[in-house]
């Protein structure tokens, strides 16, 4: 154990292990955590083990998890998007304006999703076109996008969304299975296939591991990053549609703090914040865990702010444990 020469550059170490086993162990850890919380919840509250309770539970994470799917890809390439919650605010505000102009439900959805993609493209242009660091750009657009929502709305709100529009956020496809959950599962499947079973996915990993090498081997790094930021915008737009439909109103403070929860899901899911590794299954499991934790604590009447302590600790502990374990093993060896 000597001092590391460069902090946080342990990718070679990780590649030495068979990747598969490392991935499996991380995900099985997540499954265990999820199971433990599930069991603890069922003991802690008599209202937990009920199909409608569990169905309600999914609403705790579906919108954030949709964003986390795209965020995972962005983080795997070594970038980050902190503007997602503000994209929701702007997209929702624009939907409200469209509503006042007399838009019907399909038009509202188109506006929400369209604004999301445009915001993502704006981020992507600044980051890949002007070669600026994504963390600063998206901190800037985070203020800008939500700032526009505040300029439009001030302390007002948009209400009166059509009844058929609210189905996106409140409707059930079948029994207790909500539309939001179905949409999330379908998207998760698509992201899984794209990331783990296509050329595009391999390129995303290649960029995260070594963007320069990827470029020399013919990967269009900037174009892929641009597409990924548009994708994050798209998913944020979709989340804006779902959230607006679920709440039935738009305020400029809508979805405050979603960006940090989405990043937490991604990192908790085993995606390296330094880029280059991670799985969609891990992200889905992390989303489930966060939903279980917040819902279980909610049933126990724990205030939201105290839940955030659990989420924050979970994030640090889950990251720290494997590192501590590795250090302990190295010391023994």
């Amino acid at each position, binding site marked *: 154990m000597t001092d590391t*020469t460069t902090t*946080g550059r342990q990718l070679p170490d990780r590649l030495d292990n068979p990747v598969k086993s490392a991935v499996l162990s991380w995900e099985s850890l997540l499954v265990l955590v999820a199971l433990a919380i599930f069991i603890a919840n069922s003991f802690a509250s008599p209202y937990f083990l009920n199909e409608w309770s569990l169905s309600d539970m999914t609403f705790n994470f579906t919108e954030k998890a949709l964003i986390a799917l795209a965020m995972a890809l962005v983080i795997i390439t070594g970038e980050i998007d902190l503007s997602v919650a503000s994209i929701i605010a702007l997209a929702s505000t624009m939907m409200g304006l469209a509503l006042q102009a007399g838009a019907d439900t399909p038009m509202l959805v188109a506006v929400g999703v369209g604004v999301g993609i445009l915001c993502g493209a704006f981020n992507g242009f600044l980051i890949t076109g002007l070669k600026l660091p994504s963390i600063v750009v998206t901190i800037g657009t985070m203020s800008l996008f*939500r700032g526009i929502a505040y*300029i439009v709305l001030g302390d007002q709100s948009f209400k009166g969304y059509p009844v058929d529009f609210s189905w996106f956020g409140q409707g059930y496809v079948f029994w207790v299975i909500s539309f939001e959950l179905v949409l999330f599962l379908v998207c998760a499947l698509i992201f899984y296939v794209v990331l783990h079973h296509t050329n595009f996915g391999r390129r995303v990993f290649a960029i995260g591991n070594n963007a320069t090498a990827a470029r020399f081997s013919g990967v269009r790094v900037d174009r892929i990053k641009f597409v990924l930021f548009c994708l994050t915008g798209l998913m944020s737009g979709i989340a804006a549609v779902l959230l607006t439909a679920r709440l039935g109103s738009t305020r400029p403070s809508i979805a405050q703090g979603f960006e940090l929860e989405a990043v937490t899901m991604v990192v908790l899911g085993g995606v390296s914040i330094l880029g280059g590794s991670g799985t969609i299954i891990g992200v889905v499991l992390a989303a489930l865990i966060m939903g279980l934790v917040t819902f279980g604590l909610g049933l126990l009447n724990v*205030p939201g702010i105290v839940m955030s302590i659990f989420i924050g600790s979970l994030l640090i502990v889950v990251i720290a444990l494997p*590192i501590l374990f590795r250090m302990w093993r190295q010391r023994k060896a």
Partner: protein
Amino acid sequence: MNRLLKTRELWLALGILAVIVLVTLRFPRFSQPGNLLTIFNDTSILMMLALGQMAVILTRSIDLSMASNLALTGMIVAMINAAAPGVPIPLLIAGSVVIGSALGAFNGILVWKLDIPPIVVTLGTLTIFRGLVFVISGGAWVNAAQMSQEFIQLQRGTFIGLPILSWFAIVVATLVYLLMTRTAAGRAFYAIGVNPTAAVYTGINVGRTKFLAFVLAGAIAGLCGYLWISRYVIASVEVAGGYELTIVAACVIGGVSIAGGIGTVAGALLGALFLGVVNNALPVIGVSPFWQMAISGTAILVAVVLNGRSEKTKGRIILKKAEAA
């Protein structure tokens, strides 16, 4: 490179001056010395926080937990003051620095010993610290009636014509300036930001240096915790909510490179001052305060575009000089 930095700060100072002049053209009273000093005093806390954040960013890290640290430390000293008004205020101030440093050290230890990326660590502690404010206060506020008069009045006193709060900012800025330019530790912040590998070969302990940067940021955040609470005379869970990004914004506008290694005390101060002047000017010219967020977002984007340009020309400084001549 030094010349380049100087010009950037000059431009920022000119930008601030331009805003002041433009507003003054319509509202002459805006640039009266009294009002300018008020703006400086209003911005003091942000300036100090920006300096702490700069130290962290220089080392290629980021501290997103500063605002939560401020809220937690502020709540602790406010509760101590409410429960035991007899505790002398200087002791409370020292206490706030110690508590803030301890919280910063917690971040620093995780970054140093466990090698967890700073953004992950501080994202976690951002929520943990703020949650703890709720836990220790039970969600209740500490209001003006519960605080002692000395607690509230200390920073409102004046010394050579300036409020004590402004003096805090001046002293902290001077200390950070001396640390950055006159000590080995200060140079180490820059060294590991520019090239961590080279820094190791020159005998700098990268992890420990990052740890020190986090402790410094924490100490400043703790001090500002007391100052914030005694200035706005209310301690609650929401204190400085979302302020962490304003602090980062002040640094970015001040030319501190998020990639580490580039940034000056004067730049960070001017970045904070720019936000302060703009925020102060908006109500004067009759713009709704709801514009504030979009304007600071635009300012960040403009600043980062300009920073990106000047950083890119780093390899061609000779040409740059020739151009300027």
